[in-house]
């Protein structure tokens, strides 16, 4: 009789495989980090910062959509709340250092996220999407009618100020490395969340909510927490964006923005860590390239077309399709 595989051997083999995958991941992440560090010397830093801010926005959204299975159609509200709050504080209180303004913006977006979550979490699936969309519209109306936002004109000339009162952010390179540091910190945080036991519960909720309930998890609390974290990171993205561009406008609060972040996540690959980053890079670049060419008036319909195509043909997104390809061809 053949000796069946020994338990310890299997365990060892799995560990080896995990180690190998971990090494592969570290190499990929290391190369990406080097590229990001060197990028502002090759490309325009403000453009790179735009990508990073939207990438953070998409990473935040993906935590909720890709990992928890909740489709929020109202994430623009958090982006705008972060942006307007930070912009208002930095413009009106010169004693505040930049990071204080950003923290305050993030905090307010977090609170708003908690309110949204309490109201919307009792509805599921498409109802959840409609409720979040309607709540975000309420926030949009608030910003339209408030005088501090500058209405249709937007909030201009937000001072970038000094980080910790020491480092001038007027300098684009300083600003870039600050944004990059915040982005990487958040990315690692999300990576940590997703691989933690908490993240595993989120995934189980996405796959089969009744089962998660029957296993004794308080699903509502898990979902609310995921929503709040997602809103907080989206608010942080908005806060940083308003500092980078020294501008906060109604565009950020519009439902169009909520749709755009869905597109970024979907194109890149929902439920993957790197997907939203790639997706944001793709969409921001596409918009920029189109706006420079003869198709500059066709940005919206083209984005709509990309949306339709992605849903029809590449539901796994760029990163998801690449993963599938490797899995198929490398066993």
């Amino acid at each position, binding site marked *: 009789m053949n000796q069946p595989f020994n338990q310890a051997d299997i365990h060892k083999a799995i560990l080896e495989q995990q180690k190998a995958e971990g090494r592969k991941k570290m190499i990929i992440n290391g190369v990406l980090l080097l590229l990001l560090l060197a990028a502002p010397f090759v490309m325009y830093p403000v453009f790179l910062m735009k990508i990073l801010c939207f990438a953070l926005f998409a990473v935040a959204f993906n935590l909720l959509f890709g990992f928890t299975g909740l489709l929020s159609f109202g994430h623009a509200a958090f982006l705008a709340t972060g942006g307007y709050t930070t912009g208002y504080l930095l413009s009106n209180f010169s004693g505040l250092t930049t990071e204080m303004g950003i923290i305050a913006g993030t905090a307010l977006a977090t609170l708003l996220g908690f309110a949204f979550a309490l*109201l919307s979490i009792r509805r599921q699936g498409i109802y959840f999407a409609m409720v979040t969309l309607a709540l975000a519209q309420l926030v949009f*109306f608030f910003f339209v009618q408030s005088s501090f936002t500058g209405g249709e004109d937007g909030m201009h000339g937000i001072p970038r100020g000094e980080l910790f009162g020491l480092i001038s952010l007027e300098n684009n390179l300083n600003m870039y490395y600050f944004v990059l540091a915040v982005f990487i910190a958040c990315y690692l945080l999300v990576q940590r969340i997703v691989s933690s036991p908490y993240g595993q519960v989120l995934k189980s909720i996405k796959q089969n909510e009744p089962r998660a309930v029957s296993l004794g998890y308080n699903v509502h609390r898990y979902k609310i927490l995921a929503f709040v974290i997602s809103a907080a990171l989206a608010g942080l993205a908005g806060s940083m964006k308003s500092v980078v561009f020294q501008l906060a406008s109604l565009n950020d609060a519009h439902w169009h923005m909520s749709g755009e972040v869905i597109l970024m996540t979907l194109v890149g690959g929902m439920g993957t860590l790197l997907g939203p980053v790639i997706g944001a890079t793709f969409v921001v670049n596409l918009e920029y390239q189109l706006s420079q060419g003869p198709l500059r008036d066709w940005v919206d319909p083209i984005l709509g077309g990309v949306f339709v195509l992605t849903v029809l043909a590449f539901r796994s997104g760029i990163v998801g399709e690449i993963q599938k390809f490797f899995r198929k061809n490398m066993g």
Partner: protein
Amino acid sequence: MSMIFGVPLAVLAGQLLIGVINGAFYALLSLGLAVIFGLLKIINFAHGAMYMLGAMATVILFDTLGVNYWVALFLAPLLVGAVGVLIEYFLLRRIAGQDHIYSLLLTFGTALLIQGVLTNIYGVSGLRYSMPDLFKGGMNLGFMFLPYYRAWVIVMALVVCFGTWFMIEKTKLGAYLRAGTEDSQLMQGFGINVPLLISLTYGFGIMLAAFAGVLAAPIYSVTPVMGSHILITVFAVVVIGGMGSIGGAIITGILMGVIEGLTKTFYPPASTAVIFLVMVVVLMFRPAGLFGKEA
């Protein structure tokens, strides 16, 4: 002049009338959403775009071919309904087995595409459509002035809403539809062409939206973005009413229009937001919606 709560009666009545009319549009649109939801289990994010297409088609048909209002009242919903059937056949059907979220996103993308293309061609400033001569003017009811066209909109909306309710609840075709909502596989087993039924249902829901668009053309500004504004409000109305019943969708729609009109009279700044505020309150105390049946 008689006053009610410090507001002249005529002003109040006028705002109420506008409220009822807006409510009629909310009712028509949420009715279409409910019909589509019943069988396809998706929320049609392209509904606003279809409403817009109905209005745009009315104007364009008149400008290019001289098609008058009465013909457009039938022709525009048919044309737009055909577009809906094509969308269902070529797009939605391909991802029928997938998570419903994907169909929702697909309709959203389609709406962006349609709205974007039309914005490029016609701009956002709005097309002009003149009222049919028959409806010019109005009558004095003593306490208020009632323009003929507004009365027509209310009557037509009620007729169509009631007709739809009747068809779904009382006819054989409606029975098929309701049966399909319960268990479409079993229906297929009984020899009913379910895919065809789904196509037609989607097309019919879209026709309701386009019909609302035709009614709207003479009184609202016709622009490629007119649909997205109203759609979000209609979503709030749907959340308030719940998707439980066809009748519920109609009642909630009109009720919300009236509440909006009253708010415009007594506290104008809140009028754009009031429906959303009602939604928040309903979510707090009756999360399934006023007529909702889900747990």
